[in-house]
């Protein structure tokens, strides 16, 4: 079926089976490989994108449900990795294998949009369905706090000389 929607601000029309999940439409039809496949069962969060601004699993969302929606993926979160969450992720060197991190970043960005100063418990609650097999959770948590700081200072943030990221 033909479905029109927006991806990262750009209008797209795809002609794919109506039950094809948004994940595979993004990855294989639109060749946007940033959104990852981990389980296909909404259990791991690797496929998290923003659906009209809210974090959503793309692996079980049929493309038919995306008609008219506005989707943001990791590729469109910022022009070149300048979103506060992306900056914080780099600054704290969060990733190990990195495979889950697109989903983690999208979930974290959605959290910060709703709650600019989350505490650890807020983070754990909001992010608990996003799995990291390398278990970089401690750094993800710290990076979300750091992203909150960066956002509070305005974007983009240039680190002041001598300023250090949150220590783990």
């Amino acid at each position, binding site marked *: 079926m033909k479905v029109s929607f927006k991806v990262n601000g750009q209008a797209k029309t795809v002609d794919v089976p109506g039950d094809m999940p948004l994940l595979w439409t993004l990855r294989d039809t639109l060749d946007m490989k940033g959104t990852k496949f981990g389980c296909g069962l909404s259990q791991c969060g690797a496929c998290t994108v923003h659906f009209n601004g809210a974090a959503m699993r793309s692996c079980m969302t049929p493309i038919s449900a995306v008609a008219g929606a506005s989707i943001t993926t990791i590729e469109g979160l910022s022009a070149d990795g300048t979103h506060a969450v992306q900056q914080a992720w780099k600054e704290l060197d969060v990733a190990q294998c990195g495979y889950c991190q697109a989903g983690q970043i999208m979930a974290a960005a959605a959290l910060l949009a709703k709650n600019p100063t989350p505490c650890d418990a807020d983070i754990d609650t909001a992010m608990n369905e996003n799995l990291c097999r390398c*278990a970089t959770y401690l750094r993800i948590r710290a990076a979300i706090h750091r992203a909150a700081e960066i956002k509070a200072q305005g974007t983009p943030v240039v680190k002041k000389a001598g300023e250090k990221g949150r220590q783990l």
Partner: protein
Amino acid sequence: MTAPKIAATDVSRRDFLRFGAVAGGGFFIASYLEPLGKLVEGRHTLAPADATLNAYIRIMADGSVTIVGKNPEVGQGIKTMLPMLIAEELDVDWKTVKVEQGQLDTKNFQGQVAGGSSATPSNWLPMRQVGAAGRAMLIAAAAATWNVPAAECETDKGMVKHAASRKSLSYGDLAAKAATMTPPDLKTVKLKDVKDFRIIGQRTRNVDAHAIVTGKPLYGIDVTVPGMLYATFVKCPVFAGKVVSANIDAIKALPGVKQVFVVEGGTNLGGLLPGVAILADSWWQAKSARTRLKVTWDEGATASQSSVGFAAKAAELSKQPPQRSLRKDGDVDAALASAAKTIKADYFYPFIAHASLEPQNCTAHMKADGTMEIWAPSQNPAPGRSMVAQTCGIPADNITVHLTRMGGGFGRRLSNDYMVEAAWIAKVAQVPVKLLWMREDDIQHDFYRPAGFHYFTGGIDATGKVTAWRDHFVSFGEGNNFAAGANIGGTEFPQHFVPNFALDASVMPLGVPTGFLRAPGSNGIAFATQSFIDELAHAAGKDPLLFRLDLLSNVQPDVPAAAPGGFPQAPYDHARARAVLELVRDKSGWGKTKLAKGTGMGVAFHFSHRGYFAEVVQATVSKEGKLKVDKVWVAGDIGSVIINPLNAENQVQGSVLDGLAQAFGQEITIDKGRTVQSSFDDFPLLRFVEAVPVEVHFAKNDIAPTGLGEPALPPVIPALCNAIFVATGKRVRTLPLSNQDLRWS
């Protein structure tokens, strides 16, 4: 063929060509295994693209430096670390270095494997020598240019300087000339003094960090080859079951499906297994078609095996004389007869899946000229290529293997089943094929960490000293061979520290694929051994940490200490083991904190993969039996230098939390010959709410640095179980904890 759209690193090839045209070839340092001169001279006859294959270092006329990381990157940080070693001795500014992933090249690179925590010890010297050789050739070029002795020249961040004449030239200016200099002998090349390190020891960020956070295609699953079809491969749920019949024609008629065929396969669980391949225009269509696939399987002889059956067989074997003795020191029976106390305990740990988040996948392209190109997320690509060569009948030299970043491996990707599947399917299909497994395939067709059974008997004397130790280890295998990852070394701790020691083994046959999971062997053995030591400590009425220090001091002069089990082998250094125990004691406040009932601290230590780790866990268990880990303290010794402390801390924290996840709830069970679990619902990974603080400390010494991907994991599991005993009085002898009743009153 057109290059796949995987990574932006090919840009450097254009730079190389440009530079080659201008200056007659780049400056590159070939493998430390090949005579440098041969390869450097060879650059004149090699096409530029070929020349780049052998290169570790390329310096362009504009001074930019590209360093090739030869090892597969699975999240352990090696793509950053090995180039750090080269850059340090080359003496360049790390900020100017571009890192490129090497492809499989067994002619010029050695040890392209992510396993055994081996990359650090095996590359610590050679990679620095490669960098130092480059620096020496740049100095030689400058000295020849200025007509001054090389000994008078110094380097500083990409510049060669001659102090007396105040001359200086950049590496970019010198690159072309340097390539004509006689390469130095790597064995005698001068290396920096540790105090002069400017890159090694610095908190250095992952070179792929930007690509990761911006969603660039990096992983095997991201590979796209023009004209490719997407494949799913359906295997028998009972391992190596054969296809009797399948509704192939019906599946062929489904939307988007292009080819469907039976793969006959073999019976070797590590090779190409039988199944049905479905190829479609999109992976979703292939997977959708799969739901309509009906296969009649010949499940074979292993269809009746089960975890329950294994447990019953183990219990039976434990009551019989052991099949063989792996180690015997002194006289255990006599020592037990005269012991003040004897303690018996049976331990069990289950099969575990690796569950890397990127499901197994591989892309292969069989070309008309008989060559094959493969993009493989493999931790051990060289044996994979050999298997493809043998199975598909293609000379290995005709198979190119590109290494992609991997979305986790933990040992799973040391096996190359997905590679041979993709290659076979692509060969039959005669089109490029991207094979991608479903999550369910990944959990149900793993090479599992083998389950293990330990039947312990220990004896202590009136002073609380361990006088006797027996472990009858019941495992899997045939005859004198253990199944992969199901082995134990006869000199496993506390061998050499107990006068009367016996390690015996019995095995039962297994029709389930097993393999190596992060800290293989150790991840189960440490749980059993360090828990039983804790039982002995409590039976002796001793502080468990002090009891361990005493045990480590109880070196048996008449009992030789051979290398402990596992790989790589190395002699046991009890002073290093003691040092990490003392460090974790001091950092955790062991014995100094008054803890409420229901809260306890437990300790354990283990030596594996050349690293010594001691860990303390504080855990709280509610009366209703709900477990909460409060904090973990880690003390590790991996030698003199932590090459990249930023990543080291991450690796240790990840290892420890990985161990907690195993202990909490991970178990693969076998029933009717097949794996029961299938997803993250029934095979749980750790979650945010379970991610507790992990405080990391390193003890330093003069020993060359060793690997860190694995040795931090094993101690945390027994340390947790030992903490649970203090908190509840309940001794955990069976994992995972989700099956245990921890209620107390």
